[in-house]
């Protein structure tokens, strides 16, 4: 029989208390039980970055994170960084610079870029490339994504909007 464990955590600022099987993955909890479908699953092996969520502000692969491990912590998904109306500045930059085509990788990129710019408002070109190395996009060829991020460097960064 699978063990059930009750966890309490913050999801996009909202308190959640839920009983989960010990082997439940964070991505399944968030998408299937809690209904936030913005996060995407692709490679399922921590390589592609599509499932990126922030755990206490730092990017993790939700496809390979146990739900029980977010007990007592803060989880942020793409829904948590998207304003009720319109787009965040990072999302806007992706649109303006054509940093997406099919859009499947975009939530993961937005989460990674959010974490990068919160940690470092003026990343160098090399720092941007290095930080985003683990997010894969099969459409854009990365140049447009890079330009989108580059346009935000040094921007007065507003955590509320981002």
């Amino acid at each position, binding site marked *: 029989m699978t063990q059930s464990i009750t966890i309490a955590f913050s999801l996009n600022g909202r308190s959640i208390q839920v009983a989960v099987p*010990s*082997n439940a993955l964070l991505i399944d909890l968030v998408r299937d039980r809690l209904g936030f479908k913005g996060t995407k699953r692709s490679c399922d092996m921590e390589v592609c970055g599509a499932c990126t969520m922030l755990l206490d502000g730092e990017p993790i692969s939700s496809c390979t994170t146990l739900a029980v491990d977010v007990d007592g912590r803060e989880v942020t998904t793409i829904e948590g960084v998207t304003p009720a109306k319109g787009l965040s500045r990072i999302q806007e930059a992706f649109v303006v610079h054509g940093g997406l085509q099919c859009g499947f990788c975009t939530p993961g990129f937005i989460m990674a870029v959010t974490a990068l710019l919160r940690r470092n408002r003026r990343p160098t070109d090399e720092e941007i490339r290095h930080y985003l190395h683990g997010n894969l996009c099969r459409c854009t060829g990365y140049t447009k994504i890079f330009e989108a991020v580059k346009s935000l460097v040094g921007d007065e960064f507003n955590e509320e909007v981002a």
Partner: protein
Amino acid sequence: MRPPSFEFERPTTMTDAIRAVTEPDEGMFYSGGTELLLAMKLRVIHTERLIDIKSVPGLDGIAQVEPHTIEIGARCTHSRIEHDEIIKRCLPALSRLCGNVANIRVRNAGTIGGNLCFGEPHADPPTLLAALGARLRLVGASGERLVDADDFIRDELETIREPDELLTHILVPIPSGPVTYRRFRHGERPSVNVGMMWSLDPGAPTIANARIRVGALGPRPQPLAAVEAVLCGAPVAQAGRLIDAALPAALDDLEVNEDRHGSAEYKRHLAGVLLRRNAAEAEAECEELRR
């Protein structure tokens, strides 16, 4: 894909963790899960119980413990080590290595101890830690022991750690000379890597001792003993020439797995290139120190 079901335990002391991993039946220690959960999802590893060690205190610190030793808690993530001030000051090559493991998400979750205990040949830390002469502290029900990083990985995905032994700390002697690490990467893992450490004679531009480890080619990091021997006692300025002369025979002695990342000949060539670049960097660093 979700891993098969297991019992999850969260002990809060090391004694309880070590007891929990053997009773009532065999379980596995768990922390970051970046390797273990993947293997469980792929049904390559099966365990009835995961013993989460994240609530065991004392395993995630970094401190200078003796005048010349840095102690790294096994549960430190790669990101934690990358950004640590002591590591950046005393072991900058290890900080850079940790800042380049896989990707940002793996670095935030994966731990140095987990990386070592998995015994994955295509990994960054084991090669440099062996070159640095690091020792690993294992604590089990019958006491603790210190083992050389060189002896820890026995074979592919296999270490000398007993199932009820917890890797608690990594002890790294603070180097007295240049430390260099380079890798050639396929995807996110190294297909060849080379770590090198020189100890310098005080006051003279001479290499007192050299340690070179080549990783990812065989099941575990291997020393380049013939090259190490010619460097001992050699003037720094001669290092490049001596390495060139000793390298072909030394590379031939390496155990090399041919796989989709290349032939044995190709991989030996890469190891030689990485070593020469390491040596050039080390020489430049010595030059810098003399100024």
